[in-house]
């Protein structure tokens, strides 16, 4: 029985090879359609990777007024220590801040050139709750204390970025689902045309005792193979696009002191892409043949 599967598979391959142009067009269309959601997914996954390296534990930076004075500072520290929502805090004096800045980013020359230190004293606060809304409430509260110039929520952008990536991912899945429907319908139509050219064979087979399963099999292989080839095309499109983008990405990343590189599809993701494209082709073919068999009547002379 395995023999029949092999023969059917090679038959389907031969059929695809016998109409190279039509096969190429179909495979390209499927490939392009699939590379849209798969490429988007890849881009989002890469961005997620990149932002994962960043501090996501949000902090509040509390900047003091330049003329706050020791009394106000003591009062602020007392309030920080006793506040229920605050986990830790540390003081960053203006001198230290300038030193860190010039050491960290190679701006030493710039700092040395300044007539006086423009940085304020600051407290870096981490909260007990990581929730952005809670953090923002806390930020607002501390910003109104005596001697405070301003309070800023750091790393909130990372959260926001993550939220946007999630949204992007959801949109990608919706897009993928829509394209999946389109692909099934398109494949169904391709198989329908295949069926029409092989109607005699189906009729004779049915007349001499073929089951619907037997009749369906070659078309299922045809659909799955075409889907698989489309998936491979999508994979190739994505790999080439990632390579092309990387030329520019690495230039951009160097500017930010990062070694960020767009990664191609991971092996697991690629397997999922190929598997689902083959599966969609299979389903399209299944629906087309079943529809045909349901409405098929044996013709008479």
């Amino acid at each position, binding site marked *: *029985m395995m*023999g*029949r599967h092999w*023969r059917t598979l090679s038959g389907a391959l031969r059929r695809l090879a016998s109409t190279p142009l039509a096969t190429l067009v179909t495979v390209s269309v499927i490939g392009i359609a699939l590379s849209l959601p798969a490429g988007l997914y890849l881009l989002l996954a890469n961005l997620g990777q990149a932002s994962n390296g960043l501090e996501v534990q949000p902090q509040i930076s509390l900047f003091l007024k330049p003329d706050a004075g020791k009394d106000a500072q003591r009062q602020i520290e007392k309030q920080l220590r006793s506040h229920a929502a605050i986990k830790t805090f540390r003081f960053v004096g203006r001198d230290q801040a300038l030193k860190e800045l010039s050491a960290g980013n190679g701006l030493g020359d710039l700092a040395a050139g300044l007539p006086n230190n423009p940085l304020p004293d600051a407290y870096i606060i981490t909260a007990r709750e990581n929730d952005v809304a809670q953090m923002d409430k806390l930020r607002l509260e501390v910003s109104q204390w005596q001697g405070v110039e301003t309070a800023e929520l750091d790393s909130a952008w990372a959260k926001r970025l993550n939220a946007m990536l999630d949204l992007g991912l959801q949109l990608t899945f919706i897009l993928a689902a829509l394209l999946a429907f389109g692909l099934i319908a398109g494949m169904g139509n391709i198989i329908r045309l295949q069926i029409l050219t092989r109607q*005699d*064979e189906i*009729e*004779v*087979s*049915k*007349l*001499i*005792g*073929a*089951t619907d399963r*037997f009749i369906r099999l070659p078309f299922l292989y045809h659909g799955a193979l075409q889907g698989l080839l489309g998936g491979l095309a999508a994979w190739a499109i994505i790999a080439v696009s990632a390579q092309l983008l990387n030329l520019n990405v690495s230039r951009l990343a160097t500017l930010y002191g990062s070694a960020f590189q767009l990664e191609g599809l991971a092996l697991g993701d690629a397997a999922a892409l190929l598997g689902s494209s083959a599966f969609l082709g299979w389903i399209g073919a299944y629906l087309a043949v079943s529809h045909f068999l349901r409405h098929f009547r*044996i013709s*008479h*002379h």
Partner: protein
Amino acid sequence: MISLSQVSKRYPGGFEALKDISFSIEKGEMVFVSGHSGAGKSTLLNLIAAIEPPSSGSIIINGQNLAQLRPAAVPFLRRNFGLIFQDHKLLYDRNVFDNVMLPLEITGFERSEAAKRTRAALDKVGLLEREKTMPIALSGGEQQRLCIARAIVHRPSILLADEPTGNLDSAYAGEILEMFKSFNQVGVTVLIVTHDERLIERFGARTLHLQHGILA
């Protein structure tokens, strides 16, 4: 083996091709069906092979009532038959060998066994040398013999032949009928449709005579 009782067939559109047909054929019998063009001969074969449903009456094949057959069981019923169609129904996109092989592929025969049986069937009808030929390149008589090879390759218990000698001269027709007789002698039930009364006379077998859908 084959038993019809009060079978009628009315086609969509209202034409009644068969009226109140009752007969039965025993296992191992050889029977002719004769009648004028449009008498309902092909319709009768189509009902027996479960290709068309009867409008009324019951048909029993090998003890199975066709009316009670699940659709999924129909293919397996059909494998009891060797069918020779009036319009041949050969597949013109594959060679002689592959045409004959088809019934064995359908029943899931192992490849080498299938090839062996295919050659045996082709040998029986004298087409072994032509196995690579496309059907379109065969003469009318050769095409008819190809149909016979395809009908017998899976060793059916019932042979239903619709005008198997349709466009052959009487010498050839006699040869083919001898072939059917030899199948019949090894136990195959044979039902042959023909409008050639002289042929029937020559063989002198039991004959069902149809006239305007009525068994005379």
